[in-house]
């Protein structure tokens, strides 16, 4: 089985969000970049397939050279090979198109993406990629088993979960549940050393077009101070008469 894990290079969840150049660009100053958490759950699940079912695991991202440390980390965690499509990730569609090309060329059986990236929250790359390559697709995926060319996937739905049977090739939009938080791996020294010699292939992008274009950013207006109350009667009164939510 050949697995492609699509990795988004995103600011760490604790990052302060600021913008520069007249609020047109994300301010990367002092920001630590990581593997998108939803993708990391998928990557860790892919490691399980590698160990239990001898899967070959490749990782790919669309971005400039600054994304390479993130790919190296994925290699240190255990991926066999990394691919970087050397272009700026502009919108979800153009990224999906580049990754679809990688997926097609590599003949992957399973493509694992994240439910959404924690920066732009588009949540569209895996679904678009699946449609572009004509593969089946399961979003908000919290469990995946593969046997031959059949797959069983569990999808989180509002208030519960749904179990689906489908066939490969399959694309999933993964999230926590694929593995637990405690299953995530911190690369060890051996992994880090090995990652240095594993292939990181840089590919030039195919012709693609963005369909959306972010013009500017803004931050929410600062919030007013909290109203502290002493007792529950006062709280109920405020929620009823002032906030009008009960």
């Amino acid at each position, binding site marked *: 089985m050949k697995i492609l894990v699509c990795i988004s290079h995103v600011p760490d969840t604790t990052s302060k969000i600021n913008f520069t150049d007249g609020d047109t660009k994300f301010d990367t100053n002092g920001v630590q970049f990581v593997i998108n958490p939803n993708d990391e759950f998928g990557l860790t699940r892919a490691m399980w397939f590698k160990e239990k079912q001898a899967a070959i695991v490749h990782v790919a991202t669309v971005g400039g050279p600054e994304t390479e440390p993130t790919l190296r980390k994925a290699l240190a965690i255990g991926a066999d090979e990394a691919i970087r499509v050397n272009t700026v990730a502009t919108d979800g569609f153009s990224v999906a198109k580049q990754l679809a090309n990688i997926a097609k060329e590599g003949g992957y059986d399973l493509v694992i993406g994240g439910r959404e990236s924690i920066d732009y929250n588009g949540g569209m790359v895996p679904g678009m990629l699946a449609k572009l390559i004509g593969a089946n*697709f399961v979003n908000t995926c919290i469990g995946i088993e593969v046997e031959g060319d059949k797959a069983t996937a569990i999808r989180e739905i509002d208030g519960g979960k749904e179990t689906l049977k489908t066939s490969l090739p399959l694309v999933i939009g993964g999230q926590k549940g694929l593995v637990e938080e405690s299953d995530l791996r911190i690369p060890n020294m051996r992994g880090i050393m090995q990652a240095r010699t594993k292939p990181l292939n840089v590919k030039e992008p195919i012709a693609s077009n963005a*369909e959306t274009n972010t013009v500017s950013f803004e931050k929410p207006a600062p919030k007013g101070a909290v*109203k*502290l109350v002493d007792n529950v009667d006062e709280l109920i009164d405020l*929620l009823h008469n002032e906030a009008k939510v009960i």
Partner: protein
Amino acid sequence: MILVYTESEEGKIKKIALEAVAYAKGIADQMGTTVTAVSINANDTSELGKYGASKILQVSNDKLGNFNAEAYADVIAQAAKNEAAKVVVVTSSANSKFLAPALAVNLEAGYVPNVISLPESTSPFKVKHSVFTNKAFASTEITTDIKIIGLGKNSYGLKENETSATSQAFSPNLDAHDFDMEIVSVDKATDKVTIADAEIVVSGGRGLKGPENWGMIEDLAKVLGAATACSKPVSDMGWRPHSEHVGQTGKPVASNLYIAIGISGAIQHLAGINSSKVKVVINNDPEAPFFKAADYGIVGDAFEIVPKLTEKLKEFKAQNS
């Protein structure tokens, strides 16, 4: 023409779908056109006119009894093509987010989810949407001929706009690929309000000390008709199921009221609940970061305050019903 997909569950149109119709009507007014709604296996679509739909395409098909992203996207795409829709509005529900990417590829349409208001302009077509898990907003231009908008829950409101609506049956062509996925089982609590649908969410954190103490959270939620939720550490420790985890890597919450009990308010948690309208925090630590993000707060012991709040709310409900 603006097309809006009106989601339903077990035949009943969802409230977020009504909000999407109202929003579609808002865009239609900006662009001087009308709204067509497409519904799949809904029993009663009479309400859609109230929010501004002038035409309703009703799809009835037993094969579409369960949500199926591939097939549903196909249905909406065909409706959009038939009606020559310029803008397609969907919600930001899990199901809409599942089907929208396929719909976008099919229609060669640019798609922006988590949109929070009417387009800032319709030529160029520019919308504001939340990014960085509600820590910022972006203004994004959609440059394709057809545009797809995923409306964020609770961001536009249920604005009424009485319109006389005509209904007609719509029979899309479905192909075998639409049914490549077989639902083996569905495991869903039917008696509980889900976080996605809830107007009010009651959420507990590590301050509750253990899963055995969740009774008071459930009691409070019950009085309020609320969904229950939890912080990330609580779900990581297995006190509560993953499906209740709200925050950056969990579920987003966009309820009218969010009550956080014994949750300190880590940046990742706050990001996930930021689009809730009113936030209440109950915590014994006055320095908890949540107090900076909340509208109302009580500093004190949750084990004393929560049962008292539940009792008083019962009295309040009895008086006000």
